[in-house]
């Protein structure tokens, strides 16, 4: 039985992650060979996934890491990491 576009869309995320079983994957691949719409949907979804993974899209605020480690130093100077077991 040939799968339709809607069926392909339902599995696009799992397909991108390589998590559809081989027989379904083969069905989807066969569908993609002839369906330009689904190929474009797959391309664009895959690209969204690739683009948002780029570290430059999400950056920590300037100086945040320095401020965090400074505060941790202050904490470490007053508290052992394991106050309940400090004698062990």
């Amino acid at each position, binding site marked *: 039985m040939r799968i339709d576009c809607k069926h392909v*869309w339902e599995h696009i995320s799992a397909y991108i992650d390589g998590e559809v079983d081989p027989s379904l994957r083969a069905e989807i691949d066969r569908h993609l060979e002839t369906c330009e719409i689904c190929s*474009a949907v797959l391309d664009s*979804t895959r690209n*969204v996934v*690739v683009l948002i993974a780029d570290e430059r899209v999400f950056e920590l605020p300037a100086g945040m890491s320095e401020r*965090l480690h400074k505060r*941790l130093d202050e904490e470490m100077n007053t508290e052992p990491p394991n*106050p309940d077991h400090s004698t062990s």
Partner: protein
Amino acid sequence: MTNLGAENELEIIRRILAGEKQLFHELIRPCERPVYFMLMGILKNETEAEDAAQDTFIKAYRNLHLFRGDAQFRTWVVSIARNEALGRLRKLDSRREDSLDPGSYTGSDEPAGDFTPAILTSWREIPVETVVREELAVLLREAIAELPEIYRNVVLLRDIEEMDIRQTAAALDITEGAVKVRLHRARALLQKSLAPKLKGFAPQRRVWFGRRT
């Protein structure tokens, strides 16, 4: 991005607990991004998220002896961050609790929304170098910020921080099945909102990327 191996991680934690406190700085470096963006996604305020990030890591430091090593350290810290954010949010605005309760997820309470993708036959691959364009980064950040909370958290951990399904499920305290369903819907929503806008960034030639599986 550096990620300490599981054995290294446990060894470093053992040494920190034995007195080499400064190693904690190295231990948490791979956790700073997922912790901050998880907090930012929930609290939606930079100052509040940074403050909560500091409290999260201090809690992790004080409770380090409770870490059992049955999850990755990063997963454990992200779940502390999530609890920290939800606790702060409850104080700030109790009305939002309902939409943030992840424990009640069954799969049937998902909105039966329209997840039909944006159809764009002319849309093709985008070269990764264009991502340096701030304009594009802004579009991506906005689209993610507009996602419903339960979808955004999964995208943050899975697609932005590249944690695996098991780690994502553990950090959010949901099932692996729920991670897959939410990730699928989140990506479909992002494709729908972003594909038409990204069309203007499409290059002349087609470029393929590798992608983890």
